[in-house]
């Protein structure tokens, strides 16, 4: 185990000065860090080295990896479009293991419980460490200090930024494609394993040294639409199945039936209406969580009643957003991920349902991005503190269980709303100081709980806008104290070791916080 030097960053958090042998910049504050220098670029290639008839197929993943020059210590990237149904990431890492590779860095855009076999590969030394979201079992493994390197958690936008910075040079990108042709053009909107968009893999396809497309639905050239362009692709591998369709998209997404969560969802919708955010031509983003889905249903009725329509809605698209589009309550869906069958059908057939990527939506090194142009976003969190700082990565017991996703990037919207139950079983969500800092309080505007709505004191414009509304607007501290009265005081602080297991990156690549090993 290497030793670390720590420095206190602008958020008052102790962060390591080096992570996985790379020097780091501690978090400087929102918008305070100025990255410099040219962007990274892949090596020059020539079309003369690729088959002129366009057939880049090879027999299997191992062959493809070997022909990409697989070596020990390389960085191998995969993507989470297939969500918990993905078979390709584990197959790719296992093929690398079969080829004898060791000490790989796995660079997924997100991980799911289906990626649990990577734990074995880490135990065997095939995978050295992971830079990507660590969900469920992988998070627990990381928290226990069993991973050799430090985990690095980045937002979707931060992943693109790290690739462009050259902080993470990708040696080989393996892209699971629900449809592809032999040239490497690929999309996620068609085929038996359709997942919607493939745009989390876009950066990798452009910047990686080598790109492999893996498909179970090979179509004759041209594969239309080409969300991934074959001109960036080295090899195409055909397999029987890239994933389990029932886990790639859900048949239908379920709206919560919990009365308390429905109440929170209704408060969110009423807040948007009463604060005047819900007006003709507005925009919002909602994910696929139970509260977010329900909030869209409440908002839809309010939009109908008020005769208001949105210019665009960003998702996490589901049948509920598709209904808005079909009913004419929004002009466009700008789609980051596609969660259910109706949304997959819609993105494949409706030109107003448009795939977006972390580049258009979130990238810090872009000349602007969509996230800051959205009027309101509804997000979750595991903890929020009295400074409105929020945690989405660890639970109150300090265990790493979730990735960041687009959460940090979305905080730049006009009104970022955390919609969360104030207490889960006995565990309070409102705390004095978040266990892990994922989002600085200055970007979090409103916290909506079943016990009331707290507006960040920095947003006196919002305070003013909802004056006269019958919504239960209350100070955050007051809701917190009420919950503490209910649960019998504040919980004990978890016992955390002083060695780091992972770091949380801010959207600009600086280190926002450290995740510490959990003591047994």
């Amino acid at each position, binding site marked *: 185990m290497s030793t670390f030097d720590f420095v206190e960053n602008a958020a008052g958090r102790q962060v390591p000065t080096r992570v996985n042998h790379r020097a780091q910049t501690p978090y400087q504050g929102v918008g305070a860090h100025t990255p410099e220098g040219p962007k990274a670029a892949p090596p020059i290639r020539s079309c003369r080295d690729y088959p002129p008839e366009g057939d880049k197929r090879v027999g299997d993943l191992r062959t493809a990896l070997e022909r990409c020059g697989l070596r020990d210590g390389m960085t191998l990237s995969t993507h989470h479009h297939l969500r918990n149904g993905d078979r390709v990431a584990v197959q790719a890492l296992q093929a690398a293991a079969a080829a004898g590779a060791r000490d790989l860095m796995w660079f997924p855009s997100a991980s799911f419980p289906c990626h649990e076999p990577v734990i074995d590969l880490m135990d065997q030394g095939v995978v050295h460490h992971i830079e990507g979201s660590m969900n469920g079992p992988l998070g627990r493994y990381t928290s226990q200090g069993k991973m050799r390197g430090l985990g690095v958690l980045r937002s979707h936008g931060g992943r693109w930024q790290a690739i462009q910075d050259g902080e993470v040079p990708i040696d080989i990108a393996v892209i699971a494609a629900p449809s592809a042709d032999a040239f490497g053009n690929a999309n996620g909107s068609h085929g038996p394993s359709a997942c919607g968009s493939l745009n989390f893999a876009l950066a990798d396809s452009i910047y990686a040294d080598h790109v492999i497309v893996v498909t179970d639905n090979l179509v004759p050239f041209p594969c239309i639409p080409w969300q991934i362009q074959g001109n960036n692709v080295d090899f195409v591998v055909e397999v029987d199945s890239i994933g389990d369709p029932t886990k790639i998209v859900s048949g239908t997404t379920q709206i919560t039936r919990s*009365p*308390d969560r*429905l*109440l929170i969802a209704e408060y969110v919708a009423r807040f948007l209406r009463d604060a005047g955010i819900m007006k003709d031509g507005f925009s919002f983003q909602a994910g696929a969580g139970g509260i977010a889905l329900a909030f869209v249903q409440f908002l839809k009725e309010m939009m109908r009643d008020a005769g208001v329509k949105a210019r665009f809605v960003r998702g996490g698209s589901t049948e509920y957003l598709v209904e808005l589009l079909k009913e004419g309550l929004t002009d466009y869906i700008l789609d980051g991920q596609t969660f259910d069958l109706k949304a997959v059908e819609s993105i494949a057939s409706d030109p107003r349902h448009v795939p977006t990527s972390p580049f258009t939506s979130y990238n810090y090194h872009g000349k602007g991005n969509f996230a800051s142009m959205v009027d309101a976003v509804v997000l979750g969190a595991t903890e929020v503190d009295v400074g409105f700082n929020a945690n989405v990565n660890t639970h*109150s*017991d*300090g265990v790493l269980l979730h990735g960041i996703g687009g959460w940090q990037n979305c905080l730049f919207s006009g009104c970022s709303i955390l919609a969360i139950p104030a*207490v*889960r*079983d*006995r*565990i309070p969500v409102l705390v004095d100081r978040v266990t892990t800092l994922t989002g600085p309080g200055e970007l979090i505007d409103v916290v909506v709980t*079943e*016990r009331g709505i707290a507006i960040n004191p920095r947003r006196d414009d919002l305070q003013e806008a909802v004056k006269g509304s019958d919504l239960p607007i209350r100070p955050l501290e007051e809701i917190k104290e009420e919950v503490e009265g*209910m*649960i*019998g*005081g504040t*919980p*004990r602080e*978890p*016992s955390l070791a002083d060695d780091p297991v992972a770091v949380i990156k801010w959207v600009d690549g600086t280190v926002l916080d450290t995740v510490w090993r959990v003591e047994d």
Partner: protein
Amino acid sequence: MESHNADAPAGPPEGSPEGEGEAGRRGSDVRSDCWVAVETTQGGGLALELTSKVETLFGDAIRETVRDTLRRLGVEHARVRVEDQGALPWVLEARTEAAVFRARGQQGGEGPPPRASELPGPTARDRLRRSRLYLPGNEPKFMLNAGLHRPDAVILDLEDSVHPREKVPARFLVRKALETVEFGGAERMVRVNQLPLGLEDLDAVVPQAPDLVLLPKVETADQVQVAQARIDGIRAERRMDRPIWLMPILESALGVENAFSIATASDSVVALTIGLEDYTADLGVVKTPQGEETWWARTRLVNAARAAGLQAIDSVYGDVADEEGLLAWGQRARGMGFQGMGCIHPRQIRIIHRAFAPSQEELDRALRVVEAFREAEERGLGVVSLGSKMIDPPVVLRARRLVARAREAGLLSETEEPPESPGHGGEGSR
């Protein structure tokens, strides 16, 4: 199940086992609850074994709560197992109390005296009772946030929503909920079991001063009087002076026939209500969404209640997903003279409030009548008129009552309040 005796499995070596009892729910799907098993022993002190999904954060606090409860109950030697799924302290206490009660062969279940100073004030005889939310008495998770949904009342139910095996732990839980849980201004009601079991329920819950007790399956005035006598006895013994109202539930043909005598059986009866599932079963007819088959019974109940100066409250609407059906049912019920109905899910509350709200036209007209009445009084006129029409006294009375109710329901702002607070003379009193 309720209790075990000395032939239970062998206890710890220190002492021979005396009695065993358990309470609560276990399993990974359980939320905000716990399971407590107590085995009292001859000696050996307290051995506490805990598993909890919130061990890291609350493990010590849970152990302290359980030990304190055992100490308060005078349990010095016992083997205690707790499986916790995020139960709040009062739930841990109630489950421990119930387990000890069972381990002692159903003895010594007396709770602490009521903390009267912390109770919300007593409720008015004819307060707004549009919605009353049923909460299963053995399910703590539904109780915690019930008040947030703003029902006019919550019913902590010991009867049909509680399995016969769980009656004892439910009684402990409901008692503790009355003592501890903040229901946000909702009237705190308890539905006890049918007599005679209901009398034991009364012994447990009355000391915690519920605002109202629902008596199920009442068929005769005499049953109300038996319950009333039991309540009076407990109140006298504990020197409680706040009122505890009664709402008998008529659930049979005989009960409906005796509606008026039941309504007048005790001064504490403030409302009559009806249980349509049991009533239709008694008649041998199918309960329909339109409810024609119960039309006579319901109008009979309304008439008996009004004759006795009480509120008439309708049954529940069982299909939670059918919001339009619920709204229609509620509007029909209001038209028949009912003043509220039961809810089996918090999402029904707002729909019921809408159903029982007067229309804007009704409200506007009532405000005009009240205003005309005020003017007539000011000018010392004996006759109230609105435009060219003379208004009869019953119309004035109804208008004043409607305005008062609308104000209580938050449908009118302060400025729309008639200058003189309308009393409940005549209609509301007996």
